[in-house]
């Protein structure tokens, strides 16, 4: 049984502070959607409201055709994986996994059979009798996962489940979580502040800021076509250069940055370009050259990245970070031109 999760016009307050502002998301049946943002953006609050630990000021949470908004947490039937694992320290691994089944009134024999089968799936059957204190971080997280999965919930939620694991294990675990989630086809909501984790595990990602969703899209779209300046910066478009169109010639637009640097951009590539726009690039999308069409700059600090040199560049449009080829090193103080690679740039509306 797979159902969809619908979050409608959710608002929440802590005292006088509004932490969620009219937030709506829908997660399709079997889909994994991540909430991604820095701390305080409202992602954990959203998860806690869906789990039933917090009451929203207004709005609704629906799972399939069930309205969960006013249900107590224990009646919601949601599998939850916590950041600190939240295992019961006084129960063995086996009893931790069987806990949810026990609450559902399932007979002891059946309970044991299902818990054992689930422990086998996460590769921990040999540790069934251990107490959580005798497990490593990765093992604890597997127990937490097994405990949430064994109740076969229509919705799984993850609250930064990997942030306490070391880097190598984090990568392995996220692959494992994704495989289990796909195999079961469980609708899932995943909260994280780690962009790589969110992009690698999710069908779609919601980038959040200050209690709002800035953009909800597939990782590919978010990475290549951010919808606004916030998302652009978030996914690494460090340089946002405000520009003004000075001439139009068919599909080609001539635009001018502060200081008079001119660029030619094709609307075939970027779609319709408004008179005022922002050109966003990653440091890789601006190449430092001796000459060419681009923004004149004075080079500052040089950093060796391995694949390229990165320069902090002073320009009439503000400080810009750009990369230059290893074969053509510049010294601090050199004059150069920053040449945008059109296919690695995107065009933003200055209003956003």
């Amino acid at each position, binding site marked *: 049984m797979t159902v969809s999760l619908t979050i409608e016009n959710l608002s929440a307050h802590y005292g006088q502070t509004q932490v969620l502002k009219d937030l709506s998301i829908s997660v399709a049946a079997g889909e994994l959607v991540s909430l991604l943002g820095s701390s305080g953006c409202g992602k954990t609050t959203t998860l806690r409201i869906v789990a039933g630990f917090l009451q929203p000021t207004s709005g609704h949470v629906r799972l399939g055709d069930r309205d969960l908004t006013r249900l*107590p947490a*224990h009646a919601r039937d949601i599998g939850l994986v916590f950041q600190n694992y939240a295992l019961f*320290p006084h129960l063995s691994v086996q009893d931790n996994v069987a806990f*949810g089944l026990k609450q559902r009134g399932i007979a002891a024999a059946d309970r044991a059979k299902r818990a054992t089968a689930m422990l086998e799936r996460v590769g921990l059957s040999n540790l069934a009798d251990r107490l959580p*204190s005798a497990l490593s971080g990765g093992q604890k997280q597997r127990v937490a996962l097994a405990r949430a999965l064994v109740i076969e919930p229509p919705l799984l939620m993850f609250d930064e489940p990997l942030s306490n694991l070391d880097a190598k294990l984090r990568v392995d675990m996220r692959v494992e979580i994704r495989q289990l989630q796909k195999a079961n086809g469980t609708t899932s909501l995943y909260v994280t502040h780690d962009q790589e984790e969110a992009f690698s595990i999710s069908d779609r990602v919601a980038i959040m800021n200050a209690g709002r969703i800035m953009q909800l899209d597939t990782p590919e779209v978010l990475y290549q076509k951010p919808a606004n300046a916030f998302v652009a910066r978030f996914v690494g478009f460090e340089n946002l250069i405000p520009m003004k169109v000075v001439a139009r010639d068919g599909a080609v637009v001539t635009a001018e940055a502060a200081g008079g640097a001119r660029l030619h951009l094709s609307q075939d590539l970027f779609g319709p370009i408004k008179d005022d726009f922002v050109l966003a690039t990653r440091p890789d999308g601006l190449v430092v050259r001796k000459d060419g069409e681009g923004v004149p700059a004075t080079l500052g600090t040089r950093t060796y990245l391995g694949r390229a040199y990165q320069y902090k560049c002073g320009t009439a449009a503000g400080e810009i970070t750009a990369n230059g080829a290893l074969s053509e090193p510049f010294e601090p103080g050199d004059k150069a031109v920053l040449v945008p690679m059109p296919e690695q740039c995107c065009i933003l509306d200055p209003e956003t």
Partner: protein
Amino acid sequence: MNKLAKWGLTMPATILVVALLVIPVLATIATTFGEPKGVFSTYQAFFNSGFRTNILYRTLRIALITTAISLVIGFLTAYVIAQMPGRLKSIAIIAAVFPLLTGVVVRSFAWLIILGKNGILNSSLMSLGIISEPLSMLYTEGSVIVAMVYLFVPLMILTLTGVLEGIPRDVVEASASLGAKPIATFFQVILPLAMPGLIVGAVLVFTGSFTSYATPQLLGGEQMMMMGTLLYQRAMVTFDWVGASTIAAIMVVITIAVVSIMSRMARRLNPMAV
């Protein structure tokens, strides 16, 4: 830290305990086995006396009832305090332990004034017309238990607040998310995790009330003697030092037995508990 430093740091306390507690207690107990009538004769004498065994059973009963009531009241209060926001919590803890700032005698004496023939409780009940004759509430087991609960609840609250605060919120939330109703979460998660504190509290209250002297002396009188008052009488009134030592030895053994039974029960509920 090297071995020598560890020894050096624990040495003063060890010497103090050994010299002033272990050796005197062992010496006291040793005297009870030296009677000419036989090694266990003083113990036989104790257990053959209906008067003295009655006092032992009464003391056990009062100590266990006091412990049970203090556990319930202390747990409920600590549970509420543990949920309070920071500043309110400090105020509540200070209020709870405030009675500890006065002595045991003063606090027991307060109950004399409340429970006496012409005490506050009798005169209010009479002026309300609920009773016509004053009730005799003093010098009963009830009066001793009430006063002891009052004495020991603050200790219980202090111990349990610490333990309950230490139960992580997400563990309780995990229980709810797995479908446990609040009552199931209480019995299957909160209570087992609070077990170490419950044991420490129960041991403190049990040993305190089992060995109490001032409270039964003031509120129990001659009729409701307890082991503490009996021991005092043996030693200081009849100067029967061996008899007093026998009582002391019995009290030590019972205290150790009850404490170990309590911790065994706790371990069954929570393997992490000591």
